[in-house]
Structure formats: structure tokens, C-alpha cells
């Protein structure tokens, strides 16, 4: 753990009690995330990647181990509004306009009216939705709705952005486009991003660090620091480095699958 560590997990365990007996969702997870990193969590379903993200957000409580976010417990960090969270579904309120949806966290956190308006305009421009402020969610495509939900998570300027398969429900072409935009956004805002995905190309394209996880029990099997440059055009995916990293991720996923 160094001075610029934002998220630090040591010996993290989480067991859910279910009707079918205990489920070991996270086992001995150790991970440090430094400020400004783009970290992807990849693995098959049941590997605990979403659970880990929810632990960071203070939405789940680990049964064992320590986890700190910005030097606080996850719950303190949540109360301090340390992160913005993007869910798999955009989950915009149908009775609010796009601007109204982005304004939601600002209203809850008590920003002044003028500041709300200024921030809404700024983050909507950031996700390329300027001019859509007065539209209702149903008037937007799925990809645009998800961008609005990212704007909503950015609106209150937390320096951590947690994203749980945000583009999982979108088609490949829209997804490529959003990935490109997300990288540009990350470069401009210098946020620390935790990103859950089950797509290997998406993880490799976006991340500075790829965390490969495997199920039963959910654990980390490999952590790859990406040698790719920060500047990444879409065609970097045809380069040799890219293919090598993707190969290593695939190997890591396969290694975790021996018991199936």
C-alpha cells in the first residue's frame, strides 16, 4: 500500500448465508488500486466481481478482512459520497427529464440551484448529451440512456467511479463507441475507475489493470498491469501487445475453470 492507494483490500472474505447453505462469494481477496487507475474485474458469473464492487461501495459488508476506500471504511466513504456508481441498467426515473435525472444526486446532496444547473450542463456535455436535457428517458436510445446514467454518476464529482457491467446490455457497435468515449472521459477527469465486465476485449481495451477472477469460491487468479499506452485508438485492438494481454486474460479465466 503506497501513498496514492485509493482502494485497498486485505484478506477480504464474504460468505452469503442462503437456503442452500453458505456461499463463499469472496475468498482471500487482496488488491490495491492506485489513484487514477482504470481497473477492470473480469470473470464468469459467480466469480464475485460484482460482489467485490458492491463491497467497495458499502452496499455489501465483508464477513472478514479489511477494506479501505479513500482511507475510510466503505460505509464512511459512502456517507462521504466518495464514489459514483453506474449500474448495469441505466435506471433513469421515467418521470424526470434527462436533466432532472442527472440533477437527482445533486438535489439529494443539497447543491444550490445554480450549481445544479451548471453541473448538469457540464456533465451532459462530457457524455456528449448536450441538448438532450429536456428529453424524457423513453425518447433516448439504450446507449444514450446509459450515457445519461454515467453523467448522473459524474455529476457530484466523486473521484472514484464504480461501474457494474454498464454496457452489458448494449450491442457491440454501440459498446465500442461508448468504450472509446469512456476512455476519453477518464483521460479528461482523471478519475479512479472500477469496471466490472465479462468481455475480454472490453477489459483489455479500457484498463490499466485487469483483475481476473474465478468462481466457487470467488477469488482473484491473476492481476495484469497493462503495458498499453494511455492513448488508445480503437485499432489498438489489432496490435500484438493487445492480443498478448487478451491471451493472458483468457489463460487466467481457463485456469480458474479446471474444476468444471
Amino acid at each position, binding site marked *: 500500500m503506497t501513498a496514492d492507494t485509493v482502494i485497498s483490500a486485505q484478506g477480504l472474505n464474504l460468505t452469503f448465508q442462503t437456503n442452500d447453505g453458505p456461499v463463499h462469494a469472496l475468498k482471500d481477496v487482496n488488491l490495491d488500486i492506485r489513484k487514477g487507475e482504470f481497473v477492470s474485474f473480469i470473470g464468469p458469473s459467480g466469480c464475485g466481481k460484482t460482489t467485490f464492487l458492491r463491497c467497495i461501495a458499502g452496499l455489501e459488508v465483508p464477513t472478514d478482512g479489511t477494506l479501505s476506500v479513500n482511507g475510510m471504511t466503505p460505509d464512511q466513504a459512502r456517507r462521504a459520497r466518495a464514489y459514483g456508481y453506474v449500474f448495469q441498467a441505466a435506471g433513469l426515473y*421515467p418521470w424526470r427529464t434527462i436533466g432532472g435525472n442527472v440533477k437527482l*444526486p445533486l438535489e*439529494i446532496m443539497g447543491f444550490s440551484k445554480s450549481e445544479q444547473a451548471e453541473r448538469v450542463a457540464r456533465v451532459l456535455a462530457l457524455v456528449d448529451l448536450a441538448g438532450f436535457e429536456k428529453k424524457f428517458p423513453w425518447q433516448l436510445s439504450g446507449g444514450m440512456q446509459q450515457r445519461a446514467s454515467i453523467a448522473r454518476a459524474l455529476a457530484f464529482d466523486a473521484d472514484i467511479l464504480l461501474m457494474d457491467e454498464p454496457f452489458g446490455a448494449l450491442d457491440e457497435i454501440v459498446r465500442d463507441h461508448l468504450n472509446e468515449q469512456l476512455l476519453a472521459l477518464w483521460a479528461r477527469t482523471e478519475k479512479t475507475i472500477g469496471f466490472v465486465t465479462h468481455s475480454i476485449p472490453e477489459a483489455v481495451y479500457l484498463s490499466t489493470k485487469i483483475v481476473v477472477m474465478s468462481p466457487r469460491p470467488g477469488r482473484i487468479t491473476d492481476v495484469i498491469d497493462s503495458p498499453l499506452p494511455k492513448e488508445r485508438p480503437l485499432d489498438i485492438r489489432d496490435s500484438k501487445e493487445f492480443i498478448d494481454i487478451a491471451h493472458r486474460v483468457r489463460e487466467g479465466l481457463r485456469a480458474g475453470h479446471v474444476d468444471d
Partner: protein
Amino acid sequence: MKSLLPILTIVAAILVIWVLAVVPMNMHLTADQAQRDGLVVVPQTPLERQGYSGLGLSVANLGLIPLTYTLDRPRLPSPHQVAGEMWETIALRNVTSRQSLVYHGWVTLSATLVGFAIGTTLGMLLAVGIVHNRAMDMSVMPWAIASQTIPILALAPMIIVMMGQFGIQGLLPKAVISAYLSFFPVVVGMVKGLRSPDAMQMDLLRTYYASSSQGFWKLRLPASVPYLFASFKIGISAALVGAIVAELPTGARAGFGARMLVGDQYGNPLVTWAALFAAAITAAALVAIFTAMERLTLRRMGMAAA
């Protein structure tokens, strides 16, 4: 307006069945009357006619069929008789007269509206309590359900008599019975509406560290609006039924219920039928008003009406 044709088709079918049914339903009465007026009736004695079904007697006396539609006190009035009675008591009478259905309608409607206001307010308060308080969730709902299993016909006279004991008469006891019937759909619909936000939406608010009152005003309440309108529509018609039922067993002298009873007791079915139809039209109008409000509200909220 696409639904106009199917609706008119059904109305026409009902009218046809009604008009056809008038003949056998009224034939015995018509035959008796015709005989008194010196017409030839087959068979000749009322006792023999008792052995005939309405349909059989109609076939035997085809010439009397037109007369079945013009009896003063028919067993089944024909549509034009009911329409005539309604025209006379709605349009031709002074609205303050006891003969006016508008007067009786207003008596019932005012109790309905007051009762609905009480019922929905109570229903919404209970729903908020049920959603926010576990003890209320466990305790109120079973009682709310149990309250609706008691026949209102048995309960209404008790409420009226008991309130009369305290000197409360007129509109308020009827409103209480309306409220009793209309609070329940509001409780059920609003509880469902307030609980309609899914786990993800509740999690989102947790990530903002939103208070539960913020969650209520910003998420739960707006999410419950579409459910609430469905409940209002059921509640307002239940409230009208409640007000009418409250007028039936108590010797009320005004209101739709009183008119129905008067028609029945004095052997004047036209009065009963006219009151019945006026009540149905009132209920339809109330539901239509709420449908229009629903459409307007949901459009203003940006949610297209389903």
C-alpha cells in the same frame, strides 16, 4: 375513438336482448290487463294462464305483443320507458324538487365525494405507514383485508344507527360507509406502488446516502402515481356503491338508494330502473374523470399512459 365501434356493438346487443325479453317477462301482466279491457285472451282464465311460460303465452297471444311495451307498472320496463322516465325526472323537473333525479343524484354524489376524500386520505396514510413501519406492515394489512370480508349490507345499518346515537345524521354516516369501501383499493394500490422501485433503484439512493424521506419524495411517491390512479378508479365507484347501500336500509328520503327503494316498495319499477341507470351513468362519469386526470398527470410526468 377506435373503441367506439366495439362498445356500440355490445350496447346494441344488450338492447336487442332487453327488448326481446320484455315480451315474455310482461306477457302475464299484459294478458290480465287486456282481458280487463275486453280483449280476447288465450287461454281465458288467469289460473289457466299460470300454467303457461311467458314465452308460451306470448306465442298464443301474438296480437298482444305490442301492449307488453306500454304497461304502466311492467315487470321489466322496456328501454324507451326507462329513457322516458329518466328524461322526465332529469331534464323536465326543477333540480331542487324531490321528483328530480338530479336532486337525488346530488345527495348521493356529495356523500360519495366526501367519503372518497376521507377514504383515500386514510388509505394513503395507511400505505405510507405500512411501507415505512414494519409493525404496521405486519398488523394493519390483515385487518384491512378482514374489513372487506364483512358484507357492507350488514355493516351499513349498524354504522348509521350508532352514529345516529351521537346525533350524527345525514351526509356523514353515508360518507363513512363510502370511505369504508374506498380506502381499501387505495391502500393495496399505493403499497404496491410505493414498493415498486426495484433493488437497483434503492441501491442507487444508498450510494447517494439519501435519507429515507428523500427516498420517499423522490422515488417511492412518484413511482406510485400510476398505481394510485388505478386505485382511485376502483375506489370512487366503490364509494358510490357505499353511499347507495347506506341509503337503502335506513329509510333515507333522498338519494339514488332511496329512489330505488321507493320504486320497489310502491310497485313502480320505472322509478327503480331510472335511479339504477342514473347511478351507473354517474359511476361511469366519475371513472371517466379519473381516467382523464390520469392521462393528463402521466403525460405531464413524462410517462405515457398505458
